[in-house]
C-alpha cells in the first residue's frame, strides 16, 4: 500500500492514458487475479474432498444393503427334529444347529438335482454356498412354528460371504483360484443357480435389524444391537443434558452475579468444550465404571459420558439463544409485576426455545457420531443379545453403538466387513442428516429476529 502511493504520484511525465495499463498496474492486477484464484481453489478443494469422502463411502457401502439369497426346498423329517412327536418347542430345542445343517445340505443337493444343474462338487462343497447363519435361522423358524415338521418347505437362505461378494464384484474367478474359502467350481454353481432363478439379490433388511455376527459370517452381521444401543444413549443424553444444560445456561445468563465463581464456571465450560473426547472416556472408565461400579459396555455409562461431553455444546447454544431475546421483553414482564424468575420462564425461555432445540439437536448429532470415549468404556464388546426395554433395566445391559460397530468391523480381517462398515456409516450419516435437517427446519420455521 505504501509503495503504491509513493511510486505513482510524482512521475508526471511518464503517465500515459488511463485506458492503457502500465506494466505495474498489470502486475498488480495479475497478483489480484492470482490471489482470488488461490481462494477459489481452496474452496473447491474443500468441496471436492467432501464429494470424494462421500462417494468413497457410498461406493463401498451401498452394496451392504443388498444380500444374495438362494431359494431351496428343504424337507424337515420328524424322526430327526422331533423324535417324541409332541411338537413341544422346549423338547425340540435339544436338536442343535448340527442337526439342521445336513437338512440344508440335502435340500440344496435336491434342489440342484431337481433343476437339472450339473456340478462336479460334492454335497458338502456345494453346501458352502450357504451361509452358516442360515442353519440357525432355519432352526429358529422351525422352533417358532413346529407344524412345519414333516413338510417340505421352500426357504430363502443367505448365500455365504464369498458368493455374496461375487455378485458385488469383490470376488472374481481369478481371486477364487487363490482363496481357500471358495473355488471357481462353486462360483459356476452359483451362476447356474442364478440362471434357474434360484439365486437372487434383494434388499437386506437383516443388515438393519440383525445383531452382529462372528468373524467368519460377514453376510449375517447387522446393526440391530448397535442402533438400539445408540438410541438408548441418545435418550439418556436428551433426558439429562437438555434440562441440566438449560438450567445452567439460565442461571449463568440471567441470574449469576459477576464474581469469581461465575468466571470460574464460564472458563470451565469453554475449556470442557475443547477437551479431547477421549479424555471423557478416561473419566467414564475411572469414575463411572471403576469407582461407582456401573457395568461395562452398558448404554447408561455411555449415555452419562456423552452427556458430560454434550453439555458444553448445549450450554453455549442455549446462552446464545437467551442472549438474542431483547431486554425489552424482560423489562416489559418486570414492569407488569412479574418476578425475575417468572419473566424468564414465562417469556424469555419460550422465545429462546427454537434456538435451544436447534443447539440440542446439534449436540445430540455430535454425541451420536462420537466413538473414542465409548471404546474405553467397553462398548467394543461383541454383543449378540438385544438389550431389554429401558424400563426393564435395558440401560444396564451390554450393547454397542453405531460408530463403535463401524470401528469393530474395520478391525476384522475379512474384506466383506469393510463393506459392512461403510454400510453402517451410511446408516449413521442418514441419522445425522435427519437430525440436522430437523434443526434447520426448526430454525427456519420458528426463529424470530428482532
Amino acid at each position, binding site marked *: *500500500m505504501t509503495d*503504491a502511493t509513493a511510486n*505513482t504520484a510524482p512521475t508526471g511525465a511518464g503517465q500515459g492514458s488511463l485506458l492503457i495499463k502500465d506494466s505495474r498496474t498489470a502486475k*498488480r492486477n495479475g*497478483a*489480484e487475479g492470482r*490471489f*482470488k484464484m488461490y*481462494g*477459489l*481453489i*481452496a*474452496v473447491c*478443494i*474443500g*468441496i471436492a474432498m467432501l464429494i470424494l*469422502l462421500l462417494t468413497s*463411502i457410498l461406493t463401498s457401502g451401498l452394496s451392504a444393503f443388498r444380500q444374495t439369497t438362494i431359494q431351496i426346498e428343504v424337507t424337515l423329517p420328524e424322526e430327526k427334529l422331533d423324535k417324541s412327536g409332541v411338537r413341544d418347542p422346549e423338547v425340540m430345542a435339544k436338536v442343535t444347529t448340527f442337526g439342521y445343517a445336513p437338512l440344508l445340505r440335502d435340500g440344496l443337493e435336491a434342489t440342484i438335482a431337481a433343476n437339472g444343474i450339473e456340478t462336479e462338487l460334492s454335497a458338502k462343497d456345494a453346501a458352502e454356498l450357504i451361509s452358516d447363519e442360515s442353519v440357525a435361522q432355519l432352526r429358529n423358524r422351525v422352533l417358532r412354528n413346529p407344524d412345519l415338521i414333516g413338510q417340505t418347505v421352500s426357504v430363502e437362505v443367505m448365500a455365504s460371504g464369498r458368493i455374496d461378494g461375487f455378485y458385488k464384484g469383490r470376488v472374481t474367478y481369478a481371486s477364487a483360484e487363490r482363496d481357500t474359502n471358495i473355488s471357481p467350481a462353486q462360483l459356476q454353481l452359483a451362476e447356474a443357480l442364478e440362471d434357474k432363478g434360484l439365486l437372487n439379490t434383494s434388499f437386506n433388511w437383516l443388515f438393519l435389524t440383525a445383531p452382529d455376527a462372528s468373524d467368519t459370517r460377514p453376510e449375517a452381521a447387522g446393526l440391530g444391537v448397535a442402533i438400539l444401543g445408540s438410541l438408548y444413549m441418545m435418550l439418556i443424553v436428551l433426558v439429562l443434558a437438555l434440562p*441440566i444444560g438449560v*438450567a*445452567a445456561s*439460565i442461571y*449463568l445468563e440471567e441470574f449469576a452475579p459477576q464474581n469469581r465463581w461465575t468466571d*470460574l*464456571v464460564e472458563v470451565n465450560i*469453554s*475449556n470442557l468444550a*475443547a477437551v*479431547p*473426547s*477421549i*479424555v*471423557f472416556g*478416561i*473419566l467414564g472408565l*475411572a469414575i463411572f465404571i*471403576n469407582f*461407582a*461400579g456401573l457395568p461395562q459396555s452398558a448404554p447408561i455409562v455411555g449415555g452419562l459420558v456423552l452427556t458430560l461431553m454434550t*453439555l*458444553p455444546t448445549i*450450554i453455549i447454544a442455549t446462552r446464545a439463544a437467551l442472549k438474542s431475546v431483547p431486554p425489552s421483553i424482560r423489562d416489559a414482564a418486570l414492569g407488569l409485576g412479574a*418476578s425475575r*424468575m417468572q419473566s424468564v420462564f414465562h417469556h424469555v425461555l419460550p422465545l429462546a426455545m427454537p434456538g435451544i432445540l436447534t443447539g440440542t439437536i446439534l449436540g445430540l448429532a455430535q454425541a451420536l*457420531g*462420537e*466413538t*473414542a470415549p465409548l471404546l*474405553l468404556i467397553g462398548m*467394543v464388546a461383541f454383543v449378540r443379545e438385544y438389550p431389554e426395554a429401558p*424400563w426393564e*433395566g435395558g440401560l444396564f445391559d451390554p450393547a454397542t453403538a453405531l460408530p463403535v460397530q*463401524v*470401528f469393530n468391523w*474395520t478391525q476384522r480381517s475379512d474384506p466383506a466387513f469393510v463393506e459392512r462398515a*461403510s454400510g453402517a*456409516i451410511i446408516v*449413521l450419516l442418514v441419522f*445425522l442428516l435427519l437430525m*440436522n435437517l430437523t434443526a434447520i427446519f426448526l430454525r427456519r420455521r420458528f426463529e424470530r429476529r428482532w
Partner: protein
Amino acid sequence: MPLSWILLILAVIGTIAFLMARSRAIGTVDGDARRLHSLPIYYGLNGALMALTPALGLLVIWLLVQPILLDRSILADLPAGAVPDGGTAALVMSDVRRVADGIDSGISSGSFTRDELRDLSVEDVGGLLASEGTALGSALTGEVLTAATSYWQARSSLSWIMTIAVIGLALIGGAWAVSRSRGEFRARNVVERGVLILMIAAASIAILTTLGIVLSMLFETANFFRQYSWTEFFFSTTWSPSFSGRGGASQLGILPLLWGTLYISTIALIVAVPIGLFAAIYLSEYAGKKFRSVAKPLIEILAGIPTIVYGLFALITVGPFLRDAFASPLGLGNSASSVMTAGLVMGIMLIPFVSSLSDDIINAVPQAMRDGSLGLGATKSETIRQVIVPAALPGIVGAVLLAASRAIGETMIVVLGAGAAARLDLNPFEAMTTVTVKIVSQLTGDTDFASPETLVAFALGLTLFVITLGLNVLALFIVRKYREQYE
C-alpha cells in the same frame, strides 16, 4: 425393589403432594384465590419440590456410596487366605460380586432357594451358578462363597432400607410442605429460591466434570509413577509394553508417541491452515452472495461428519492410494497406514474448523479499515494481505492453536490411519503412533488397574489433557488480549 419402581412411586408421591398442597392452600382461604400470597400453582410446586428433591438426592448419593462401603466391609471380612498368590483383592472382589449376582438371578428365576443354598456344597453351588451363566475368573472357593453370600444378603437388605428411606423422606417432605400450605405462606419466594439452587447445582456440574477428569487422572497417574520411574516415562525413547508379565520388561517412554502426535498434527495443519484460510478469505471477501450461500454450508458439512467416517476414509481410500501412488514407487515403504495418511485426512477434517473460525474473525475487522485501504488505491488482495490479515492476525493465530489442539486430541483418524508401531522416524510414509492411539490400545478390553501397562494410559491422558488445555488457554488469551483493539 427395582429402581424404576422406586422412581414411579416417587412420581406418584410428587403428584399427590402437588395436588394436596394446592387444594389445602385454596381451602385455607375458602376458595378465594385472590387472598393467597402466591398463585395456587406455586403452593403445588412447593409440595412437589419438597417431596422429590431431597428423596432423589438421597437416592443418588445412596446408589453412589453403597457399593463403595459394602465392598470395603466385605473386603475387611475376607480371610487372609482368600486372595490367591499372584491375584489381587480387586479380582477376588469382582468374583464375589459375580457370585452374588448369580445367587440373585438364580433365586429370582427359581432354580434354587435360600435354604437349599445353605445346605449345598461349594462345588454344587459352583455348578449351579455356571449353569445359570455366571462365569468366574477362578474356581469357586469356600471363602469367596461365604463372602458372596454375606455380600448378597447385605445388598438385598440395604436395598430395602434404601427403598424405605427414600420413600419415607419423600412422604415426610411432602407432608411438611402440605402442612405449611396456608394462605399467608410465601410459596412463590420459596419455590423460586429452590429453583435457583437447582440451577446453581446444574451450572456446577461443569466444575465437577473438570474436577472429576483431573482428580481421576492425577490419582491413577500417581499410582503409575509409584510403579514406574517418571524420568523413564518422559525421557525414554522406547515404547514396548510387555503383555505377558507385570511391569519389569515393559518400556514405556512417551517420546515416540509425542513425536508421532506432533508429526501428524503438523502435516494436518500444513494442509488445513492454508486451505481453510484462503477459503475463508475467498468466501468473506470475494464470493458473491449466491456462491457463498452454497459453498459455505457445503464446507461446513465436513465439520459435522463424525471422525470415525474420516478414519474409515483414511483406511480404505487414502491409505491404499498413497501407498500405491507414492510410497511403493518411491521405495519409502509399503504400509497403507502412515503418518501421511492420517495427517492428510486430519487436515481435511480441520479445513472447516479453520475456515469458519477465520471467517468470523475476518468479518469482525471493521469495514472502515477496508474502505480506507481501498480508497487509497490498494487492490482487494493488497487490502487483504496488508490490512485485514494483520488486523485479524491474533484471531487467526488463536484459530490455528485451537485447530492444533483438536489435531493432537483426535483419536479415530489416527487409530485407523496411522498404525500402531511406536517409532522415531522422519519418513512420512512409515506407520507411526500417537498418544491417543496408545490410550485406546492400553485401555480397551480387559484392564487390570494394578499393572503399569494399564495405568500408563492415565499418565498419557493427563499429558494430553495438559497439552490441549495449555493450547486452548493460550488461544483464548491471545484472542481476548488483542481483540479489543478495534472495539
